């Protein structure tokens, strides 16, 4: 195994901080480049949707005051960053006096849980099938069957979600249409509740798995073919090692390394896809929160949920980056 050096850790950690800072700044700056201010824009949208909003001027003024939009831009920016550091996103406009933190706190575990399950299945299934596709020892039949399962690859997960919802929930009625567990149930560790969670989570998780495992399979196949051509594969075969051992220790072990890097890079897309899937299934995670906040023009909630998701993604990438030198012995040396 490799080792984790302090220099490497510091470099990765500063990338993490820069990521968060950059995303937060973009979120703050771009809307302010547009004519008008965000609050007027929001109320404007409300008016367009609702037809007429009473006392819109007063609402705008009130919100401008509360958001401190009358201060100078630098002051606003510093205060904004300060609030983010304290994880203070203010109150929800639609469900005042609930704080954004509370709303996020309720939704986040569902999203993280579903995402962890879906992404783990995707990564291992995809890479396993990709390895089989490239391996010489795989039966021909399997090699023909795997690509058939990959027709959904690269389709947006939201489209797959709609199809699955229609076929398995609406048409066949095998799975529930909405929610993360049966309505009226109180979350507990009972078998009944857990079964319900699995039952409700299957289709959302499947939507993510179906559309992305093929991506990993293709990537893994490509890497395996590259590894296959390496000189050390020749030697491994000349040594008369067990083919399964060669597959695992020589081929997969080396081919998976770039896949782990790719995993960190595509995590953002995965999170985005998952959020949309949650919205289709009205799953009580972050996606649903974002969608109802969009409908309610509840800007603090939109901002808070998005920021937390960006933060979680960056954190996950950081963790992968820190694990990486442990699985690739060459990494810690490249930097020194």
């Amino acid at each position: 195994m490799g080792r984790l050096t302090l220099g490497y850790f510091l470099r990765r950690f500063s990338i993490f901080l820069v990521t968060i800072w950059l995303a937060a700044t973009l979120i703050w700056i771009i809307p302010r480049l547009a004519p008008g201010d965000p609050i007027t824009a929001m109320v404007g949208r409300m008016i367009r949707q609702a037809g007429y909003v009473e006392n819109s001027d007063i609402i705008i003024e009130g919100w401008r005051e509360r958001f401190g939009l009358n201060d100078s831009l630098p002051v606003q920016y510093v205060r904004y960053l300060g609030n983010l550091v304290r994880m203070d996103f203010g109150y929800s406009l639609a469900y005042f006096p609930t704080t954004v933190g509370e709303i996020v706190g309720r939704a986040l575990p569902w999203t993280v849980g579903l995402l962890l399950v879906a992404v783990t299945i995707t990564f291992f299934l995809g890479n396993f099938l990709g390895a089989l596709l490239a391996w010489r020892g795989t039966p021909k039949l399997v090699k023909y069957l795997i690509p058939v399962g990959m027709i959904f690859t690269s389709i947006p997960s939201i489209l797959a979600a709609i199809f699955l919802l229609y076929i398995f929930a609406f048409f066949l009625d095998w799975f529930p249409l909405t929610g993360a567990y049966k309505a009226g149930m109180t979350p507990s560790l009972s078998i009944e509740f857990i079964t319900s969670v699995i039952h409700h989570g299957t289709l959302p998780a499947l939507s993510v798995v179906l559309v992305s495992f093929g991506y990993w399979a293709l990537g893994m196949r490509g890497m395996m073919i590259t590894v296959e051509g390496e000189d050390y594969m020749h030697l491994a075969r000349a040594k008369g090692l067990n083919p399964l051992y060669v597959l695992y220790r020589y081929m997969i072990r080396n081919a998976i390394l770039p896949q782990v890097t790719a995993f960190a890079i595509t995590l953002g897309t995965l999170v985005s896809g998952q959020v949309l899937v949650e919205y289709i299934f009205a799953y009580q995670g972050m996606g649903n929160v974002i969608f109802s906040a969009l409908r309610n023009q509840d800007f603090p909630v939109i901002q808070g949920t998005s920021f937390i998701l960006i933060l979680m993604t960056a954190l996950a990438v950081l963790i992968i980056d820190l694990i990486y030198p442990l699985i690739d012995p060459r990494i810690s040396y490249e930097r020194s």
Partner: protein
Amino acid sequence: MATTNTSPDQRAVDSALALPITPKRMGRFNRWDTPWLNRKLLTGAAIVGAILLIGIFGRLFWDTDLAFTASSPLNLPPPGFVNSRGQEGTWAHPLGTENSGRDMLALMIVGAPNSFMVGVVAATVGMTVGVILGFSAGFIGGRLDDFIRLISDVTITIPTLMVLIVIQALLPVIELSTMALLIAAFAWPSPTRLIRSQVLTMRESGYVQMAKLSGTSTFSIMFKEILPNLLPYLAASFIGNATGAILAAVGLETLGLGPQRVPTLGGTIYFAISGAALLRNMWWWWALPTLLLALMFIGLLLINLGLDEVANPRLRQASR
């Protein structure tokens, strides 16, 4: 031996292929053995091309004004089907209509190129920026390289959709072009990284070194020696980028954050979901845009896989 990194078999084949080919063979070789004529690539291009043709020529045969609200009867199914109110579909609206009186066929004809446009614009802008940054980083190196690498490493991991949701939720008006440019703002890191690493590899390669020794200028090395060899990679990266951009656009549109003035496929899905099309069993409403988008993505994937094989001959061999 000059090529110590290839396997012995590969080398034997290489040296075999390096032999003079007679002129007669040469002609055949060039015409049919080009890697660009690859089955995946052609199928993908055909699918995407067909969707585009529907968008471009469809408006010659079908009245696209029917894509406006209240231009048609409400909730009609395609002909031969019956909706929940017992109404039968008519040939006046061969793909049915939705709940605010828009003709589905007109929506598809207008919407498909719009969704595609976002992808092309965002990918073109992202690609251009990526080529410039990638070449600068790879060729100039030093501090500039460190900086470009840091910024692209950072940007690439940000979940783009989350940022765009916040931004678009706050923008008063969203045009198709605004959305394309916003997406493009996050579409440059992956071409930048790709081109940087390829330039670094090629810079050390024999033929570029030779060009340098013979006094060719850096600029002409970049464009005459390196760029042509990057073409398949660039093409694959472009398609990948366009796919990603359309993905982001569809995501925003289905959340109701797309352009308000023009119909898009994602926007149609948004209305179908908010109009409870699933529960009302109005499959034509949600299934048509979903299918069309799915086809578009499958086409783009096939193009990308084909280009991958063009760029990487080993994959080509293995797929035989």
